[in-house]
């Protein structure tokens, strides 16, 4: 068991007046992987947004390296890299310009080439991003992970649109990240093969799928 990196206790997420999940807890140690599973609408994306600090949980606490960060997401925000459903790519900029903007690095920095190479994007370096296929766009978004080194990666369905070979590249990159002391939390529906993952199934915390929570759901609404 490694040192504790990030944990949450009793998290409840409310969106549009509906409980997305109730009483969820998780624990992440350094150099480890947490895979979020669960059916559509069970709150995987919402949980990832809460962990990135973009969204606030209705109840519960978040702890970053033994420090209470529930009300101060700034504590962990600078250590995380979040990649959501949208790739944040500007179609009129080239692949390299897109990447160098987000990494804030100089144009000629070799690290960018290395990051692109890891996802096999180097041949497309000077291609305008509007010519990329959806899988290539996804790989460009993922290569940002390597251009700006952060401790924790939060990936929301990272393998969407990727072919088998590209998923292999992603698995390799995640393994490398673990070896250098980083951690990863990702949500996925398709298998991504990584070393010794912990799995968290959100089905049991969702009132949509777990009937035991429906009463709780009503109570919450009366209370609000």
């Amino acid at each position, binding site marked *: 068991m490694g040192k504790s990196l990030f944990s949450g206790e009793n998290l409840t997420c409310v969106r549009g007046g509906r409980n997305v999940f109730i009483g969820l807890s998780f624990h992440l140690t350094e150099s480890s992987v947490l895979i979020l599973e669960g059916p559509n609408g069970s709150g995987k994306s919402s949980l990832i947004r809460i962990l990135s600090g973009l969204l606030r949980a209705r109840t519960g606490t978040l702890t970053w390296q033994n420090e209470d960060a529930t009300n101060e997401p700034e504590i962990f925000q*600078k250590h995380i890299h979040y990649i959501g459903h949208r*790739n*944040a790519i500007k179609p009129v900029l080239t692949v390299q310009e897109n990447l160098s903007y987000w990494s804030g690095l100089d144009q000629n920095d070799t690290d960018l080439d290395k990051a692109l190479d890891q996802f096999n994007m180097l041949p497309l370096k000077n291609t305008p991003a509007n010519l990329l296929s959806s899988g290539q766009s996804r790989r460009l978004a993922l290569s940002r992970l390597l251009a700006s080194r952060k401790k924790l990666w939060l990936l929301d369905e990272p393998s969407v649109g990727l072919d088998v070979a590209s998923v292999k590249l992603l698995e390799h990159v995640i393994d490398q990240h673990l070896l250098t002391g980083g951690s990863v939390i990702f949500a996925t529906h398709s298998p991504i093969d990584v070393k010794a993952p912990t799995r968290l199934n959100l089905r049991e915390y969702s009132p949509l799928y777990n009937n035991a929570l429906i009463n709780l759901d009503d109570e919450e609404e009366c209370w609000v």
Partner: protein
Amino acid sequence: MNGFLNIVSKDLRLALRQRSDLTMAVLFFILTAMLFPFGLGPEPNLLARIAPGIIWVTALLSVLLSLERIFLADYEDGSLEQLVLSCASLEIAILAKVLAHWLTTGLPLIMAAPLIALLFNMDTEAITILLIAMLLGTPSLSLIGAIAGTLTLGARRGGVLIPLLVLPLYIPTLIFGVGAIDAAMNSLEAGAVIANARPHLLLLGAILLVSLLITPLAGAAALKQALE
């Protein structure tokens, strides 16, 4: 500081690559202002008298056209989330985006304004004051407009909401912007032009300072809300 320049240069580069965005506001400005002589008839005295009002109102409307551009594209493609997460200070990032917007909208308007002023038979002293007033006034238009841009992000058809939110807030800039030029045109002695326009210009400066202070704070709060 690095992040600030990074955002400004990226937005400028995007604007230069998508030139239709860049030219739309300024062409709208020139074309609408040119309609007035046709509608009112070629009477030099009348045109010179109403020129300040027409130039300012058409400038406001042209800025309005481009306000949605500041944040909407970034919101839709996910860049805004990344900006919120990766920037040390969201307030600075908003100021950077507003500066880029002013450089691609306000500055072209200022450069086109003398052309329209000549068309309306304004004299050179009034044109000088017009340019100073626009230099002080158009940044406030971008700043105030940016707040509306952030507030309407989540809303459906937010582009329609922006004018309703923004136009009332543009009234002070319009009043003092026109007032400065009127004061300059009505001064009897040649030396008194600046002195007469001065109070109006100072008030335009005050509006600029207040919006410089409010926009980053209000914009950052609205952005966080929009991304929830």
